[in-house]
Each structure stands twice: as structure tokens, then as C-alpha cells.
């Protein structure tokens, strides 16, 4: 383990950045005062093994070639960078480009991380992977990687989510995974992580815990970011090639923060690029029913890392609320907490209503159905674009915003149909939509 966090790390690093230092490739375990390993001793040896395996792998040309091959020939990378011309008219006339992670195999950025970690599991000689999932996206991606690489796969999923997302449960089972409904605690994503950790403690000799986001104990935040850095690298090269210059802003949605850290990483050292993370504001941050962890949370430790956390005065985790299952998590990756504190990234909440308006807008202006998660980034881009136009109307048409379109919205059609009241009241889909909307 590296040095313990120091009290003034934030300021010194912020100064270093301003003076030309780098924020890229932060190795962990600490990001300023965040990160670390707040974990049972029983799991420390496994975390050490994972860290060592990961560090060796990323310096191994064979491993990098394997990842590059899978990205190209299995996931379908590089994903496109598409200019959203009609959508842009609603964002103050600023030009909006979409990084199309929705076009990846399995329909989101999640595939980048699961392929990398599954390869590491094989390198460690592990035969079994476990994963947590909320609505099922990471579970489906994990089951996909396990099927591809011949690994046993067990997915923990809140019992209520299993009921609401029965088709995703079926998808995972079609792919050969076993789905275990979680009935402990609040029966949500955080409890699925708790049960996965309990499984890992008991089976760590054969099992790799394939965590789905850039949170958790070291080395997970730095490692998950590494596998998603390809998003930002591609986006930066693509905008330079297409437009000959860097964007003015980059926008992404934040749950645990894996798609965001992946695209942000490409631009962290470009001071002219403003970076925005959009958290789930749920019913509105003033209602208490939200998942705006950085906006309203306080630092604490959960699931292995020190980071911003939605918690009460006793340090008990507060349940989060969002129409988007993928953002419905009361914690956030530690590198985001750090980037928030030093002011490199601005984090703002987007309500369910704002996200759904942006969802419909993208459908109707671009013919692209986005994930509701990604719709938070779209709604944020609209605000950022309108602010740019308000500040300097004459130059708005020359500004560029890149939005990470982290996933496609096919999984969200029932929720959206219910939200927009598109279903016959007596249809079976109407029932599914009602259940989905309770997310």
C-alpha cells in the first residue's frame, strides 16, 4: 500500500495540476483524502493479489493486445462520435457530439470493464466470477464475459429488482449465469454489493468479484477506470480528427461513476476543457428522494472506499432514489470525490423529469433511444449549452460539447412508456411499466 492520505493533498495536487502537473493515471489507493481499503482483513490478500495481477497485466503487451482485440472484434470499438445536429438546437445552439457507447456489444460502456476483469480472473486462475447488479446491465455484461471466457458466473440482484427486471434475469440465465435474489437490508443495489462481498469472503480462493463501477476498495477504482479509459482516448482523438480541436466541455452521468471517469480521463489534463458530472437528482434534491451523492453527501466509508456518501447523522447509509436504476446508488467512486474537491470537475444534479425530457428529445431529434442514465448527461449538456449561449450568444455556434452516451435505452422502454403515458391501461406492458417506474 502507498502512503496514507495527508491533510493537504488536495490543495497541493490542485496546484500541481494548475502548474502543468497531471491528473491522469492516478494509481490509487488514495485520491487526495479518498479511496483506500476499508475492508475486512479476510479480503486484503485477495485485493493484493488482484492489484499485483492488474499491475503486471497492464505492462504486458500480450494482455494489452488481448484487450485491444476484444474491444475491436467483440465489443465493436471504436464506438462512433456522432454529431447531434437537431438536438444541438435545444442546447443553446452549441454543437453537441455523442460518444456512442450505446453501440457497444451488450449496449453500454459496461462491456469494457467486464472483459478486462474477466481476463484478470483467468490470469489469477479463478474459475468463478460474482457480480452485483441493479437493473441488470452490469449483471448481463458480467454474464456475457463469463460465457465468452468459460467462467462460472453468479449475479446478486435485489429481490425487488429481480421482479421488476424479469427480462434481464432471463437474459443473464440465457447466458448461463445464476441470479441470486438479495433479500437482506433494503434489498437494493447496495445490499447486492453486501451479499457479493459476503460470498467473496467465503469463496475468495476460487472467485473473483467483478465489481461493476469505479468504486470499492483499491485497486478497483483505478482498475475499473483503466478499462474505461478507452472511451476518453477515442473521444479525444475523434474530435481532434473530425473538428481539429478539443471540445469546450465534456458531460457524463454519475452513479458509481465508471462511464464518467472513463471519458473524463481523456480530458483531465486539458485545462481548456470544462468537465461536468451529472448526478441523479431523483424527485429533486430538496425532497430527499435522490441519488446526488456528491452534491449533498458527506465523506464516509462504504464498500471499501472513503468517498462522498449519502448517510444520516448516525453514519447509516441512506437509500437513494432515481428513475434510473444505474444511477441509484448512495455512494460514488473516490476519484470523483477528489475531482470535485479540487474543482476540476463540476458535479450537478439532474431530476427525473429533466432526464426524461432529454430522453424524449434525443429520441425525436436524432432517432437514438438513450439509456435513462445517459439522459441525465444529455439534460446536463442542454443546461451547459444554454449557459454558454447566455454568456456569449455570438460564439455559441462554434462551441463543442461531448456527451458520453453511455448506454442505449431499449431496457428502459417500459419505464419511459409509463412515464409518458403511452400504454393502453390494460396491457401487460402497462403493468411492467408501473413496476419499472417505481425505480
Amino acid at each position: 500500500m502507498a502512503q496514507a492520505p495527508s491533510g493537504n493533498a488536495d490543495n497541493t495536487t490542485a496546484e500541481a495540476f494548475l502548474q502543468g502537473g497531471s491528473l491522469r493515471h492516478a494509481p490509487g489507493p488514495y485520491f487526495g483524502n479518498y479511496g483506500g481499503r476499508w475492508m475486512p482483513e479476510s479480503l486484503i490478500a485477495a485485493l493484493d493479489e488482484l492489484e499485483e495481477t492488474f499491475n503486471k497485466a497492464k505492462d504486458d503487451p500480450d494482455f494489452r493486445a488481448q484487450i485491444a482485440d476484444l474491444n475491436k472484434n467483440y465489443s465493436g470499438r471504436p464506438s462512433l462520435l456522432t454529431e447531434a445536429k437537431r438536438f444541438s438546437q435545444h442546447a443553446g445552439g452549441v454543437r453537441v457530439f455523442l460518444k456512442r457507447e450505446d453501440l457497444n456489444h451488450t449496449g453500454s460502456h459496461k462491456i469494457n470493464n467486464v472483459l478486462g476483469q474477466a481476463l484478470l480472473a483467468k490470469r489469477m486462475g479463478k474459475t468463478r466470477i460474482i457480480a452485483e447488479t441493479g437493473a441488470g446491465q452490469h449483471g448481463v455484461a458480467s454474464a456475457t464475459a463469463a460465457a465468452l471466457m468459460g467462467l462460472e458466473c453468479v449475479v446478486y440482484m435485489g429481490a425487488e429488482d429481480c421482479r421488476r427486471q424479469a427480462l434481464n434475469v432471463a437474459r443473464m440465465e440465457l447466458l448461463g449465469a445464476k441470479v441470486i435474489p438479495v433479500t437482506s437490508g433494503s434489498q437494493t443495489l447496495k445490499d447486492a454489493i453486501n451479499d457479493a462481498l459476503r460470498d467473496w469472503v467465503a469463496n475468495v480462493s476460487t472467485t473473483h468479484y467483478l465489481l461493476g463501477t469505479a468504486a470499492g476498495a483499491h485497486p478497483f477504482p483505478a482498475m475499473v477506470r483503466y478499462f474505461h479509459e478507452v472511451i476518453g482516448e477515442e473521444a479525444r482523438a475523434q474530435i481532434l480528427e473530425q473538428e481539429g480541436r478539443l471540445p469546450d466541455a465534456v458531460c457524463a452521468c454519475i452513479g458509481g461513476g465508471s462511464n464518467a471517469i472513463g471519458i473524463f480521463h481523456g480530458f483531465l489534463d486539458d485545462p481548456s476543457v470544462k468537465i461536468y458530472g451529472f448526478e441523479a437528482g431523483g424527485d429533486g434534491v430538496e425532497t430527499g428522494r435522490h441519488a446526488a451523492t456528491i452534491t449533498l453527501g458527506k465523506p464516509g466509508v462504504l464498500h471499501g472506499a472513503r468517498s462522498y456518501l449519502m448517510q444520516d447523522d448516525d453514519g447509516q447509509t441512506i437509500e437513494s432514489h432515481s428513475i434510473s436504476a444505474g444511477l441509484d446508488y448512495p455512494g460514488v467512486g473516490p476519484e470523483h470525490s477528489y475531482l470535485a474537491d479540487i474543482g476540476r470537475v463540476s458535479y450537478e444534479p439532474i431530476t427525473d423529469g429533466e432526464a426524461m425530457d432529454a430522453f424524449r428529445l434525443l429520441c425525436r431529434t436524432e432517432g437514438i433511444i438513450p439509456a435513462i442514465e445517459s439522459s441525465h448527461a444529455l439534460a446536463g449538456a442542454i443546461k451547459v449549452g444554454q449557459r454558454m449561449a447566455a454568456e456569449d450568444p455570438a460564439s455559441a455556434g462554434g462551441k463543442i460539447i461531448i456527451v458520453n452516451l453511455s448506454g442505449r435505452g431499449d431496457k428502459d422502454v417500459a419505464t419511459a412508456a409509463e412515464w409518458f403515458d403511452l400504454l393502453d391501461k390494460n396491457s401487460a406492458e402497462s403493468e411492467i411499466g408501473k413496476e419499472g417506474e417505481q425505480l
Partner: protein
Amino acid sequence: MSSADIASQAGTTSKSAAAIDRARSQGRSALIGYLPAGYPSVPETIAAGIALAENGADLIEIGIPYSDPVMDGQVIQTATTEALAKGFHVSQVFDVVAGITSKTDAAVLVMTYWNPVVRMGVDEFSRRLAEAGGAGLITPDLIPDEAAEWMAASDKYGLDRVFLVAPSSTPERMQRTVDASRGFVYAVSIMGVTGARTSVSSAAKDVVAAAHGAGAERVCVGLGVSTADQVREIAAYAEGVIVGTALVAALRDGGVDAVGALTKDLSTGLARESGLAQEAGA
């Protein structure tokens, strides 16, 4: 007692070590019983704690109910979830500790996941625990690597810091954890979470031997221990035996009286064969 008085005693005494040594002087291992605070109510936790002490427990471990107890199995999860649902607040753990220490000679430790301590403030939590007569903390998700603040506060207030060692701990980590611990070292008997099991893993004996080898004078074994026979097996090689889930189940099914009866039964397994007490190196 004021904080200054407590601080002046820092480093001079360990309540947990004294309780274990007292048992050792009687030719037996120490019995450590776990109860979750506020289950089924704060007064009943205090009553059950007193019953533990009166029936043979030398140390008592009071757990703080927490929203995300990753090291706990079903029985303890259910109990702590119920305590939280009934409105338990973290500061009530000090009432439980004071309630038991005022009526018994048992050393009373608090077992807690780390975030509730962080939220209150490590120094503030430690001060209040010491004022309540608590012996120290058992920290299942805090490793010495992350414990700088707790090391300072536990020294300041004279509290024991009980870290866990596991079958998976490397020799380096074993040494580091033993060196950081005060009072005793908590040896996790198996790779898993809390819960009664039919047999004690052979790994437990190896973990204890490794901890002794790293210089630990007092090693107590927990996870999965529920019967007097299992207590007897562990008492042959460890300075203390920790029972949790079985006591919580007894409290759930038979109330305070059942806790007392089970404690009495468990304590029959504590006697150490002659010679072993010396071998451990007092």
C-alpha cells in the same frame, strides 16, 4: 471521570487484557459474548449483557447495528436490521456500555463497522466510549493501514484496539496487525461471515499459532462458535473464545434467561488442560 483522568491512564491498562488474564489465572480461557445494541431493545440488551457476565462471560462485545454489515450472516443481520427499524441511534451504544459496566466486572468492547465512528468523529466517539466505561473497539472493516486516527484516539483515551486476523493473512500482515492491536487479537476462524457452524475449521488453530508466533499474547477465536464442545476445542489453544450468533439466536428465541443459560453451558468448555496456559506465554 473526566477525559483528562481517562487520558492519564492511557497506555497503562488494558481492560480486555486484564479480563483475559483473570480467566487465565483461573486455569481457563476467557469467554467473550456478542450482543447487538438495541435488540430487541436497549434495556434488554443491558439485561442480557448482565446475564452474560453473571453466567461466565469475561468480556462482552456490543455490536452497533449498521445499514451495511458485510461481515455478518443472516441471524445477526436480522437482529440489527430490527434494531434499526425500531429507531436505534448510535449514541445509545454508550448507554448500553455504561449500563453493563456499572453492574458487572466484565470488560465491555464495542464492535462496529467504521462509518458510524467516522460520522460521529473518531475522537468524539472514543471519548464517549471511555467515559461510558468501555474497554475498546473491535473493528471488522478497519485494517491497521487505515487506522491512523483510531490509533491516536485509542492511545489518548486508553482504549483497546482489536483488529482481526484471518486464515488469508500473510505473515507480513499478521505481524503488522498483531503489532497494531491492544487487548487481544481477534482470529477469524474461517473465511466467511458470522453464523453458527457445525464444526470449527482447522484453519483457526493455524491462525492462532501464527498470531502467537508474531508475538500476540492474547488471541481470541470467533466466527461459527456456538456450542460448549466447540468452546472446549478452541480453549485448548486460544486465550479466548468468542460466541455471537448462538447468543443472538438464544435472545431471539428465549429472551434474557436463555442468554444466561447458554452462557452457563458455553462456559463449561473453557477449562484449559494444564500446561497450555503456560505454553501461550503469559
